[in-house]
């Protein structure tokens, strides 16, 4: 039966429409920038946005709106906001939302939706986006009444940014955006019965952890993305220094402790440093901090847990015991818990163990030698790292370039951003644009492969249009290197679907057609020189490095 829309708003003395309320709510949350792509179903909102001081950044493909918001959120710690239309706009955004979800990034995602009386009829540009995103949003709303918008926005920002952060989706039908509302008020606080994240670690558990640390002979700290998210870098450094326990990191935990610090052993896992992996395997106590024990970081958690006592600190109780059996769980904000632990801890780590792990570090120095026929990417990343400012932000894409960057870039006071959880190719350029907008005075460099660059190269338009000064490195080896490496090792070198050569543009010309300066480096000496020039210049720059396809990830 077809239900005709009711003229239910007749006679209501309206102070605002739903769309106006949406914009006002964003203003109340101090949102300065919103990344998006318009379409019919979100037009009422866009029309109101034109009257606001909030700056809209037009991306070239919707997925990148979420990546930009994510890069923005990761660099400044605020909630990133993006907006797209219904149907394909919303479905294109899905990969971006899932990327943020896997890395626990706070986003508020607004999607337009078809008129509410048409929902479920498969009309033009209708997609059940709340349903489609159920498994990778922290929470989602399909708004049925504009009067609910203030509460929903308040809740969405609260949920996205507290506890374990994550993306929250608000799907708003066009008629709800147009709906007049007689009265509205932005709530002071969100009050949600079923959502009260715990911040303070349980005192007894902290005490138990301290006792375990005192008894341990071969302890190690494993630092995950949760430490970065909790803004607990200083607390982690203080704890590691006072306790004397060596630190390794997962890919998402890179940058918490500078790579050249004596305490730091490098990244663990499948693509990790030998020093970190060997230490982890021999430890009798592992202190997991904001790390979810993903398979790429810890491939055999059971084996490690058999040899070592495990202390696991996480704000999300469901992470504790999910992938690894835990002896001492501590649920709470990593920053708070580390503070409590630092207060009670003393350095009881045997000197022999400290020496042993330091020896491992020296025994396995970074790999690669400078080359004259190609740019050796690992050497180049170390050169680049030395040239960049201390607080620079490096954004790595996904593939071999990610591993080269993760293993060789020394994060001092800056940041290392990457899609660690979902491993989304094409992440680096949009995320770097978002990061630069959040921190305009910092150097921002994106490292891509030629595969991942081509997934997001449409965003060169966005960065030119917005005048965003980011530098892009393309590691060009004409292949999808990471998968090709798998084919080399596991499939006897039978390459299929991994060769890009023969279909690649001239990246320098491509850049120039956008008015972006670019250059091509064929060996390490040239790359180093051009990178130095690149970093000195104002405005975007693309440096294409010719890389030997035979260069391994690690």
């Amino acid at each position, binding site marked *: 039966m077809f239900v005709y829309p009711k003229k239910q708003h007749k006679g209501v003395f309206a102070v605002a429409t739903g769309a106006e309320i949406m914009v006002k709510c964003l203003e109340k949350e101090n949102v300065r920038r919103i990344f998006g792509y318009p379409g019919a179903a979100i037009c009422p909102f866009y029309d109101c946005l034109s009257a606001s001081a909030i700056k809209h950044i037009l991306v070239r493909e919707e997925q990148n709106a979420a990546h930009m918001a994510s890069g923005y959120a990761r660099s400044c710690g605020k909630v990133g906001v993006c907006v797209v239309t219904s149907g394909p706009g919303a479905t294109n955004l899905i990969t971006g939302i899932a990327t943020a979800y896997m890395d626990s990034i706070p986003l508020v995602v607004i999607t337009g939706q078809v008129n509410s009386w048409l929902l479920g009829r498969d009309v033009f540009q209708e997609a059940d986006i*709340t349903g489609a995103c*159920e498994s990778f949003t*922290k929470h989602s709303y399909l708004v049925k009444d504009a009067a609910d918008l203030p509460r929903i926005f308040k809740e969405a920002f609260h949920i996205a940014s507290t506890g374990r952060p994550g993306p929250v989706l608000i799907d708003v039908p066009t008629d709800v955006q147009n709906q007049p509302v007689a009265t509205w008020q932005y709530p002071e606080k969100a009050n949600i*019965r*079923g959502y009260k994240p715990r911040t303070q670690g349980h005192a007894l558990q902290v005490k138990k952890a301290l006792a375990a640390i005192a008894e341990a002979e071969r302890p190690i700290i494993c630092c995950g993305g949760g430490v970065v998210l909790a803004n607990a870098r200083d607390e982690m450094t203080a704890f590691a220094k006072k306790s004397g326990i060596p630190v390794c990191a997962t890919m998402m935990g890179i940058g918490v402790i500078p790579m050249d610090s004596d305490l730091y052993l490098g990244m663990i896992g499948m693509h990790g440093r030998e020093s970190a992996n060997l230490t982890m395997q021999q430890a009798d106590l592992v202190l997991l901090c904001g790390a979810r024990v993903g398979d790429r970081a810890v491939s055999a958690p059971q084996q490690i847990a058999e040899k070592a006592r495990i202390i696991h600190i996480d704000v999300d*109780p*469901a992470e504790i*015991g*999910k992938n690894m059996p835990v002896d001492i769980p501590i649920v709470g904000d990593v920053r708070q818990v580390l503070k409590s632990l630092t207060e009670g801890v003393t350095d009881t780590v045997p000197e022999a163990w400290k020496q042993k792990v330091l020896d491992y570090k020296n025994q396995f120095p970074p790999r690669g030698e400078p080359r004259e026929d190609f740019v050796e990417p690992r050497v180049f990343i170390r050169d680049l790292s030395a040239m960049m400012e201390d607080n620079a932000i490096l954004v790595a894409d996904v593939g071999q370039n990610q591993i080269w960057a993760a293993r060789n870039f020394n994060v001092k006071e800056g940041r290392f951003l990457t899609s660690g959880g979902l491993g989304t190719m094409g992440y680096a350029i949009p995320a770097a644009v978002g990061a630069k907008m959040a921190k305009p005075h910092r150097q921002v460099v994106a490292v891509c492969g030629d595969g991942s660059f081509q997934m997001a190269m449409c965003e060169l338009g966005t960065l030119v249009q917005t005048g965003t000064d980011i530098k892009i490195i393309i590691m060009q080896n004409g292949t999808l290197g990471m998968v090709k490496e798998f084919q080399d090792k596991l499939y006897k070198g039978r390459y299929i679907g991994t060769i890009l050569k023969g279909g690649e543009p001239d990246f320098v010309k491509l850049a120039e057609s956008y008015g972006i300066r670019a250059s091509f480096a064929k060996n390490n000496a040239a790359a180093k020189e051009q990178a130095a020039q690149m970093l000195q210049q104002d405005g975007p720059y693309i440096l294409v490095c010719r890389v030997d396809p035979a260069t391994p990830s690690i």
Partner: protein
Amino acid sequence: MKHTLSVLVENQPGILSKVAGLFSRRGFNIDSLAVGVTEDPTVSRMTIVVDGDEHMVEQVEKQLNKLIQVIKVRVLEPGRFISRELSLVKVSCRTGDRGDVMKIAELMQARIVDVTTSTLTLQFCDTDERTETLLDLLRPYGFKEVVRAGAIAVEKGCH
């Protein structure tokens, strides 16, 4: 092993799909799920029976707690709660068998709610085990249809 969870949720649309989706995507096995509004009209209670080991039940509990609309999750302790399941059983029953089926019904305290020349329909409300017993007893006569509602449970005493 079977575990019974009592879950309080916001009485809002969409929560059932969120809970069901969580079970399927995390690979948890739902045995039964029953949902209805509580004494507070803004709150619904779900009684969920899951089949799995301790580790899985712990994960189910934690993952359910992460859902924003979930207010409270309790894993009910064996022996400390009352559980009931409603079922309607339509049995093939020719004239000669009717007396036997009625005897079973009387013995098990099932109510006969519909009679036709070829069928008898029984209404039964008891524990999961007793329901299984009734079904075993009726199986030789042939089932036309068996409809089970899923267990609902309440803790004993003053919890």
